[in-house]
Structures are given as structure tokens and as C-alpha cells.
């Protein structure tokens, strides 16, 4: 995909709102284009902060499940 076409997609890419093939094309281009990569990182951080406002406490069990899986030494507390 051409640089201009990727540049045009970067906003929706940052929101995970592209089609699969577009996603792949954007990522392939970014591997060689520092400008697009930096712009995507900048917009993704904004998107991330939009997501942060959705914080919700998960169930208590999830914590011990996760830590068990990560390493047997760390059991539920």
C-alpha cells in the first residue's frame, strides 16, 4: 500500500476499526515508515486513554487464576 493511502487510514487503524486486509497493509508499511509508525503510536495512545475511562473491576477469582497460570510458586492470596 502507498504511503498516502496508509497515512489516510492511520486514524481508523488506531481505533482498531480497519478491515483485516487493511490492518495488515498498514502494519507492513509501518515496518519501513517511521512517520506512519510514529503517527500511529501517537493516535493509539489517545485511543488507549479513551479506553481507560472504561475501567471495571473484574471478579476476585480472576487474579488468583492469572497468577497461578503465570507461575506455580505464586498461589492465591
Amino acid at each position: 500500500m502507498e504511503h498516502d493511502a496508509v497515512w489516510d487510514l492511520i486514524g481508523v487503524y488506531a481505533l482498531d476499526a480497519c478491515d483485516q486486509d487493511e490492518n495488515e497493509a498498514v502494519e507492513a508499511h509501518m515496518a519501513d515508515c517511521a512517520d506512519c509508525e510514529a503517527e500511529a503510536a501517537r493516535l493509539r495512545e489517545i485511543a488507549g486513554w479513551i479506553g481507560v475511562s472504561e475501567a471495571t473491576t473484574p471478579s476476585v477469582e480472576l487474579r488468583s487464576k492469572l497468577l497461578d497460570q503465570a507461575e506455580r510458586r505464586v498461589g492465591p492470596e
Partner: protein
Amino acid sequence: MGPTISVAERRLHERMLAGDAGALAELYDQFGSVVFGVALRVTTDRQAAEDITQAVFLDLWHSPQRFDPGRGLLRPWLATVAHHRGVVWRRRQQAAQRCDLDDGRTHLDQVVADIGETVESVLMAERVRLAVAALPEEERVPIRLAYFGDRTYRQVARDLDIPEATIRSRIRTGLGRTAKALLSELVEPKT
């Protein structure tokens, strides 16, 4: 952009790199609600959101170098990773049940906002929320639909009956405007 990475956060990441299981527990305690909240919002499915939350943290546990402390904070980064996984899950789900039109969005009414966030991040998230709310409707609506609705920008364009190129540019402009609003606020903080 936003608060710079703190010494505590950098140290936590260094401990992850060193394979310190206690660091994973701390990381989860600090950011579990963000990861789960985003995943739940995108999938509207508690089980899927829990699975995604586990996968996000286990992934970072096994490959902590995926996070680059030079490029931003852990919190928005984790939110982005959770969002991406949520979207992948949702699309797989949609592909599997194309005819099921109930997206389960009503479950979201029961979602309770988390209060265990650090003050700085709550402020930042609030600033972002206000900055997005202050965007012109033509930018705000597609951003919210694309990020939180279960849609690609093409679907958003169809739903709003607006050309795809226009949607792309409005989302891009809106995100850029949000970034700029945050930056100017950080340079000239409001009292």
C-alpha cells in the same frame, strides 16, 4: 503526551523483565480493571473479557519487552492491547453468528466504574473524556462508534450514510484534535 512514565512504573516494568512474579501481581492490581473494563466494553461478554484480561497479562509476563517505556505509559498501552484483542474476539464472534443481531449491549448498564485508579490517571482519563465530548458531533460520533460500537469504519460509514473517506478523515481529525487539546492543557494547565 500525557503524564510521563513514573519511576515506579519503570521499576515495575524492569521487574517484569527480570521475571519477578510479584511484579505481575502488582501490575494486575494496578491495571487489571483497565484491561478488563476495555475488554468488557468491546466484547460485552464477561467470560470473554476475563479470558482476554488473562491473555493480556500472561502475554506481557512472557514477553515484557513488548512494552516500550520510552513510548508512553503502561495504562493506555494495556488499554490498547485489550481493545485490540476485544475487537479480534468480536469479529470472530460476528463471523460465527452473522444472523444473531442481539449485540448484548444492554449488559453494559450493569457495569460499575472502578474507583481503584490512581488520581493522575483518573484525571487524565477525565481530560480525554472531556476533550472527546468537546469534539464536533461529526467527529465524536464516528470515533465512539468505531471504538466502542462493534463496527469497522466502513460499517460506521454505512450506518451514518457518510462516505468512507469522510469518516476516515473525521476520525483522524478528531483524534488529532483530542491530542492537541490535551497537549495545550498540559502546557497551560487550567486551575
